[in-house]
């Protein structure tokens, strides 16, 4: 039963992730006054990538890196409080989850190091630099909310503390945290204005430059899961989780909002992006943290 539930959870998160990718394409297209690709486009893309006949590998490290990427993401998937897989056999600690989210970046760094494309190296160093911005922000937010929920870093406890209608949601009680969290989410997903990792006009596709065929397919699969997890964290932290329907609805809602920001903004330079995080979201989060502590 646990295994079946787990599989269902995997399937749901994967499908949701792909739908999010499709929605992103569609929303972008509509704002740009286009019709846009069908919402199923990411499915076709992934299946096409897996059906490529030739796949260039630059060495074993690159093969391992793709597995590490996907493995790290799947692991963090099971640390996310969700309504589909309630048998949380892990101690679902928010700090552990945030720590696990670093795995994909490190895995990517391994593969890029093997491929030795300068665009990739610049891209991955940018991705790791960005960690100094958003990771710190989201940690402050998470710790602050944990303190607010009677000092427990157990993630499901934070979620359940918001139970009982939207009036109890953290987004209303801790709006500064919510703003900081939203900006950090933009940074985590690499959306503009923090799209410094994959900056097409600057460094081609950054770390993915040398990944093609099945390797890129794996990255796409990982991206689908990552979208689900990272938006899911925000939904859990601020929008009180949800049941099997409302959870997905909230994820999609937050994601569309993210996309609106993404579409109309230019991208920062790397330093500017990190400086921005330290200037605004972190200060907002700190203010709220102080308020939470001395309250």
């Amino acid at each position: 039963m646990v295994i079946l539930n787990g599989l269902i959870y995997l399937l749901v998160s994967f499908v949701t992730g792909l739908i999010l990718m499709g929605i992103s394409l569609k929303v972008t297209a509509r704002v740009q006054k286009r019709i846009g690709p069908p919402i199923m486009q990411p499915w076709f893309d992934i299946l096409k990538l897996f059906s490529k006949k030739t796949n260039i590998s630059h060495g074993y490290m690159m093969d391992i890196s793709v597995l590490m990427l996907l493995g790290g993401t799947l692991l963090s998937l099971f640390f996310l409080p969700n309504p589909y897989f309630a048998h949380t056999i892990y101690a679902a600690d928010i700090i552990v989850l945030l720590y696990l989210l670093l795995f994909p970046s490190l895995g990517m760094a391994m593969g890029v190091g093997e491929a030795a494309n300068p665009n990739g190296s610049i891209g991955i160093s940018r991705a790791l630099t960005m960690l100094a911005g958003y990771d710190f922000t989201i940690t402050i937010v998470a710790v602050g909310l944990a303190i607010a929920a009677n000092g427990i870093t157990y993630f499901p406890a934070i979620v359940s503390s918001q139970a009982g209608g939207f009036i109890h949601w953290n987004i209303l009680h801790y709006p500064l945290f919510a703003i900081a969290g939203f900006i950090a989410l933009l940074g985590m997903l690499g959306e503009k204005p923090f799209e410094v990792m994959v900056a097409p006009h600057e460094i081609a596709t950054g770390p993915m430059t040398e990944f093609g065929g099945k390797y890129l397919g794996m990255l796409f699969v990982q991206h689908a899961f990552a979208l689900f997890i990272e938006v899911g964290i925000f939904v859990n932290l601020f929008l009180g989780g949800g049941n099997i329907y409302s959870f997905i609805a909230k994820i999609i809602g937050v994601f569309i909002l993210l996309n609106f920001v993404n579409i109309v903004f230019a991208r920062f330079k790397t330093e500017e992006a990190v400086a921005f995080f330290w200037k605004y979201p972190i200060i907002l989060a700190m203010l709220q943290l102080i308020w939470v502590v001395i309250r």
Partner: protein
Amino acid sequence: MSEKREYTLYIGPNHPGIEGNYALRLSLEGDIIKKCNTEGGFLHRGFEKLMEQRLWIQNIAIVCRICVPDPDPNENNYARCIEALSGMEIPERAKFIRSLVLELSRIGSHLFTLGGIAATTGIYTMPNWSIAARDRILELFEALTGGRVYHLYTVPGGVRRDLPNGFKDKVLKTMDYIEARLPEYDSLVFENPVFVQRTRGTAVISKETALEWGVTGPNLRACGIAEDVRKNQTYEAYDQIDFNIPTFDGGDCYDRARIRRAEIAESINIVRQLINKMPEGPVWAKIPNPLKWKVPAGEVFIRTESSKGEYGYYMVSDGGRKPYRVNVKGASMTHGTFVLENMLKGARIEDASLIMFSLDACPPEIDR
């Protein structure tokens, strides 16, 4: 122990951050560009040689291909060279129509460039909007000349044919449409805080350096020098039109983007005046049989203001059926090569593509 290591990064020819088929070879130290070498020649077709092998009239078909986004200054320049050599006077109406074509082409090219500049900083919505607006201009061209991109419309002695019925109204309507779009671009790009932060103070050219480096066109005007071939060596119908030369003082990427938006507004004004003041009359002076046409011997250098800067054609005729030599000086021959090389020195890798697009370097002009 920290050891600084330089490495080489190619931007282009196969890279989204390059305008056309061109390459920048960057020596990087960290994110800072230590040295930049431009590499051209990917678009070289040997136009100057080809022109020596074709009749005077045949060359109209190839001159426009020298600059792809803004082809009409080429045709105009070529036609005016022949007219200057053979001492031909063209009808007044033809002058107005030629100016109209030049201005429409300028608007189209600037819209293209605006989209490009915005896209380098990540606003991909802007090219979608501005290129759709440019398409309305191309549609006007299609109605007027039959071709969307290459028009072969301005020919020695005038223009190929008169304006079709109802064309003036169409032009005015399109101008209204594009004018109404400009505030949208303002709020999307020029008031976008991130865009302003990225471009303000990036790659500044001072007035003195600009003159020293031979910067021309909109890039020069973004440095605060109000010089324009349309004014200082007026041609076609521009002496009968009342227009300003917009300038900005910053000389940075932001002003180079803004000057293009200002020039679109000014060109719309010029187009309206041209339509209103356009006289009636013939559109083509009588020319000899084009297949047997011999242009009198002589040499001439004629300049035109294109959307990229100052264009120059140096033409030598030995009195034969074909040109003896045509030398094309594209506007980007300074911007795209050594101005760009100098400006990228010390810039950051993030800005390389932004600087290139803000200078509006057009590789086919450099390579010919």
